[in-house]
């Protein structure tokens, strides 16, 4: 299927040049809190992608019938219903991840990416474009989460997705030379790592305006 230029832009823009996390600085709360390990971060990324894409479609389909005065409440209710579904699904099929994410699944409701996309895109565009825009923003959010969680889990606990990467025999306790970096588990390092991602991203996209 041939995609028009606008449709392509809706999907590809948020991945790099218009990334929701590192350029628009939206949805930071959860991006920082769930990145101690790779697995919850990945699940969070997928959950947000699904919810953004579907709520974009619903709001876009309803955009001519929603009275503008109460649109925020309508948007919140649609998002809250989708989040409730995703949360119930996770509790049923991935209980340990849902415990690890704790309140942050519920906080997808107030994730600024969602409200931002609904207001800025779904209210003025058709369902198909909105769907791709939602997918693009979800993936843009996900890659930042995955990068930060990759570094934090590898350096903080020597594992990836729960699998041991750094051999046990390297550790000082077993007569080796290696020690986990405890700082990586602290909330503070998440902020500093996101700052490094922003730094690298801006450095690579020099022509971009501040």
């Amino acid at each position, binding site marked *: 299927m041939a995609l028009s230029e606008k449709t392509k832009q809706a999907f590809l823009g948020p991945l790099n040049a218009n990334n929701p996390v590192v350029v628009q600085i939206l949805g930071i709360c959860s991006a920082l*809190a769930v990145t101690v390990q790779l697995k919850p971060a990945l699940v969070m990324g997928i959950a947000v992608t699904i919810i953004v894409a579907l709520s974009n479609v619903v709001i876009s389909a309803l955009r001519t019938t929603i009275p503008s005065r109460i649109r925020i409440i309508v948007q919140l*209710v649609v998002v809250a219903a989708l989040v409730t579904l995703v*949360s119930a699904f996770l509790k049923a099929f991935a209980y340990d991840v849902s415990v690890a994410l704790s*309140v942050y699944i519920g*906080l997808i409701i107030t994730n*600024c990416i969602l409200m931002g996309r609904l207001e800025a895109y779904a209210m003025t565009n058709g369902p198909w474009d909105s769907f791709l825009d939602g997918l693009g923003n979800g993936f843009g959010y996900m890659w930042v989460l995955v990068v930060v969680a990759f570094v934090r889990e590898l350096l903080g606990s020597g594992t990836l997705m729960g699998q041991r990467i750094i051999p046990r025999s390297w550790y000082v306790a077993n007569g080796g030379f290696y020690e986990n970096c405890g700082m990586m588990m602290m909330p503070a390092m998440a*902020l500093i790592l996101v*700052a490094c991602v922003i*730094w690298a991203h801006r450095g690579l996209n020099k022509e971009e305006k501040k």
Partner: protein
Amino acid sequence: MMEHAINLFVRSIFADNMIFAYFLGMCSYLAVSKDVKTSAGLGVAVTFVLLVTLPVNYLLQQYVLGPDALVEGVDLSYLSFILFIAVIAAIVQIVEMVVEKYSPSLYASLGIFLPLIAVNCAIMGASLFMQQRVTLDAADPKAIANIGDAFAYALGSGLGWLLAICALAGIREKMEYNDVPKPLQGLGITFITVGLMAMAFMCFSGLKIG
């Protein structure tokens, strides 16, 4: 009893600070903290809305949503996301109308922030944490056992947020004159600043009174 509430209050300002320990309300925290005066206005508004919504949601949790609360044998907690966000959105709307009617000068300085607060993660997050904490054992210093505790937790969280945003705004005002590497200017350096502040706040994590 009183001691427990005071302990909860102090802990939620310092050790369980909304920004530095849980990254809640990060979006508006980063966007608005450019000067101290506006930051203080937003901080006061957040504290106020927390003080109203959290006890209301506590009563909802105790008398409607909890297991066996409304009807014997029925657990309505899967409705909590939708109900909490509806309560928050409605209360923010009411507060906005009341302030507009009775104090136009306050409305002029606070008005632009009030719609933002409905989607501030700190408000929703506090309600979701409250939902987790009501199930804790009463001896746990984090437990919220009665409506007084709910008020203490709301006030402490709000003041903690106010403290964090005013501190960051103060630092950012001074930092205007510093020579920051180009790609790191703006939000990059702000993230690193917040990371360093979060490290400082980690010292409070063992805090206990009485």
